[in-house]
């Protein structure tokens, strides 16, 4: 029986955000926006969904006078990502077989 894919991560932009955050300590909003190519509005909405699910932490602060939003993956997010990748592997191995 195949495990269901986490619907929260099975979205292009949210998966891209989590994939960026999995390899770093923290990434700011501008960096994530540049690398995902998303619009600021859409990215804010998706980040908010990940935050509400407890997958990421969001820290709002300032660097000099500029506002900065820093995103960091949580342990819950890390586990969810691992489970998502494991489920994905299962789907692919079944398809190949």
């Amino acid at each position: 029986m195949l495990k269901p894919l986490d619907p929260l991560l099975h979205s292009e932009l949210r998966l891209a955000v989590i994939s960026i955050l999995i390899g770093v300590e923290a990434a700011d909003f501008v960096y994530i926006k540049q690398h995902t190519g998303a619009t600021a509005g859409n990215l804010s909405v998706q980040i908010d969904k990940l935050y509400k699910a407890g997958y990421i932490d969001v820290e709002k602060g300032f660097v000099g006078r500029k506002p900065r939003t820093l995103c960091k993956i949580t342990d819950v997010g890390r586990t969810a990502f691992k489970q998502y990748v494991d489920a994905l592997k299962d789907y692919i191995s079944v398809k190949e077989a």
Partner: protein
Amino acid sequence: MDNQKSLEIISQMIADTSNQIERNSGKYFLCWGYTTVAVSIFEYFVMCLHLNTALIWAWWLIPVIGGVATVILARNETPTPKSYVDRSISAVWAVFGASSLYAFVAAVVYSTSMFYLIVLLMGMGTVITGAICQHRKLTLCGAIAMLLSLIFPIKHIAIRDIGAERFQSNSDWLIYSDIIIFAVIFLVMMVIPGHIMNCKSKK
């Protein structure tokens, strides 16, 4: 979104983030490498031409120029997320940099040779950085530097056994050649891999 697309996104984002590490490291190697080579060549001529002995303090230009340039380069960088690899590399260079500075100060205070220890420490730092970044050429250059560091004690023993007087009479260049060897090792250890890393990240 299909499963194939999910995999593509994951691998693309992870690859983009890890590529950042290499893009940032090359310029720091070049900055410290060229500074050390330039100051060493300057000091070699100061010693050989018997210029003002106060110029020996110019060795301090290496940590001063290197440190200031590192801060400027870091400030001018476009803000990028710090990865665990970045933190590991920073910790490695903080420890090896501080140890080399300590070796340098100890060499000044006790009038001993600093070259062997500094080259060995910097070589170790380079090998570890290469291993963390999985950069084989950087690891190799660091390992070569560690091996070349043996030149200093071997040369010291050779001069002691053959007889220092024989060299001191008219062979200043041989006595001070330690400085040139030091510069050449830094060229191999930092400048060459720095350029390789920069070329690779530009492609």
